[in-house]
Structure formats: C-alpha cells, structure tokens
C-alpha cells in the first residue's frame, strides 16, 4: 500500500517524491538484483537504471495493477541488460568472496554468508525465484508475472532451487539431513 502511495506521489509531485520511493525500496531492489548480477555494483547500477526508467514515465508505475512487482520487473530488466553488456561474472564469485572473508565473523553472520553463497551458486533463474518467494513473500503467480513464465514453471524452479540449497546447506542445519 505504501509503495502504491509513493508511486502515485511520484506521478502527482514529480521528481520530488523520488527520495521517499528510493528510501522505501532501494535496499530490497538491490538485494533482488544481486541474485541476477551477483555483485552489488551491478545491482546498484540496475537500481539506478530502473529509477531512470520510472522517472521517464511515472504513469506506468502509478497505473500498474501491482506496482511493486512492476518495479521489480523494471529493475530485473535493467539487471539483465547490464549482465548482457558485461558478459556476466562466473556464478557465485561475489558471494564466494564475501563468504571467504568471514573467518572472524560472528556465527549468525557466517550462516548468513553461507546461505548467500549457496544462493549465489544457483542458476540465476532459480536464485531470483528464491529471492522473490522467500525474501519478497510473493506468490508463484506474481513471480510468474515478473519473470514472464507460468506459475508452474516458477514453482518448479523454486522446488529445484530448494533441493539444491538443502544439499548445499546440509552442514548448517541438522534438520536438513533428511534429504530424500
């Protein structure tokens, strides 16, 4: 609701409302874009390009039936463009490097980095479904809309991703030992 209000403010007040929109959603958008770009710089560039797209025509965001999925889709498209330009980094490099520096990190942070590293090892198509499903609490139908795939495809990508992640994270969670 708040995001929709921000989108409408952007239409009414113009660029003056950009700051609030940024504060509201930038970290989440960067987190999502990182599942595709695998590094924060590219994710932030995708965020900037996405905001430029929105500023170019704020009506599209304000009139979107679901503004938040629309915004995610815009940033996703920009992240893919950047990936195509930069011929993407090998999968998992950024997450691995973050995890490798966490020797002296507290246990929770270590777990966090391990999980992120594991997510980084997934194919981007599966990683972004995981991000949208778990971090953005979206339904498979909404995910399908963003990714331009059917909700069944989104669900199966999620299932495959979860299987891989369970294997990768087996050491971290004792319950996950019951993998069939």
């Amino acid at each position: 609701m708040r995001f929709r209000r921000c989108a409408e403010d952007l239409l009414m007040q113009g660029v003056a409302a950009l700051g609030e929109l940024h504060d509201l959603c930038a970290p989440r958008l960067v987190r999502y874009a990182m599942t595709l770009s695998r590094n924060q710089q590219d994710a932030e560039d995708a965020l900037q390009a996405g905001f430029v797209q929105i500023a170019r025509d704020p009506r599209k965001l304000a009139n979107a039936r679901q503004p938040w999925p629309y915004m995610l889709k815009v940033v996703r498209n920009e992240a893919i463009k950047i990936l195509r330009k930069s011929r993407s980094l090998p999968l998992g490099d950024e997450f691995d490097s973050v995890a490798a520096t966490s020797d002296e990190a507290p246990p929770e942070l270590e777990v966090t980095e391990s999980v992120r590293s594991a997510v980084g090892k997934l194919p981007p198509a599966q990683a972004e479904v995981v991000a949208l499903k778990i971090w953005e609490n979206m339904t498979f139908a909404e995910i399908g809309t963003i990714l331009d795939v059917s909700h069944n495809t989104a669900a199966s990508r999620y299932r495959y991703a979860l299987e891989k992640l369970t294997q990768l994270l087996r050491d971290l969670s004792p319950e996950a030992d019951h993998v069939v």
Partner: protein
Amino acid sequence: MSYDASFETERLIRAAGRCPELSAGLRERVIAASVRTRTRVERRLRWDHTLAVCGLLLWLGIFIHQVTTFPLGLPRQREFRRQVVAVGRLTEDPFFSGSDAPGIATAIRKSNSAWACVEAASDSRLWKGRLLRRCLSG
C-alpha cells in the same frame, strides 16, 4: 526432499535475507540521474507540444485560406460552371479566346445577353478567371 528439510532451508534463507548496505552516495546518484532524465523528457515534451501547436496553426491557416479563396462546396462549383458554360454559349465575343482572367471577366461583363450570369461571375478573383477559362475551353 522431506518437508522438514525444505522448511529448515527456507528458514535459513529467510534469516539470511537481510538487505545489503547500499553504497555511499547511491541515493544522490540515483535521484540525480532520475531528475536529469525527467527534465530532459519534460523539455522534449514541451518541444513536441510547441511543434504540434505550430502544425495545427499552420494547417488552420491553410484551411482558412482555402475556404476563403476556393469554392469548396460542390453545388456552388456546379452552379458556377453552369453559368460559365451558359455565358460561353451565349457570347461570341472574340475577347474570350486567349485572354487572361480580367480580360475574360471584362468580356463577359460587356456581353448584354449573358448579363445575369456575368453578375454571378463578376466577383471572380484570379482563380475564378482560371476556372472560367478552363470551363470555356472544355
């Protein structure tokens, strides 16, 4: 995969889902780029509107010019042609052949037998003279 395992995996991923710390100056950079783009778009829109208004005015000017100088209505044209043909038939004046529009008008005006038609045609401007000549030759 067991339900417990996937549930635990989801829990771990959810717990690791904290948002990254954004780079310093990103906010300013994003907003500045967006504002710049918006300004450029608005300038282009204004220019497009100006061009559209100019085009409309030009079209309106041409339209008004046409309306005031051309007989747009078909019945009016037919009537004029009929009158001219009648004049052409009635007058045997040598001034008709090869003369220019004012000459034709003068010749028609001189013709007593077609005076009614001449009255209708005498307010003709140059284009009417041309039409007259075309009608007479055809």
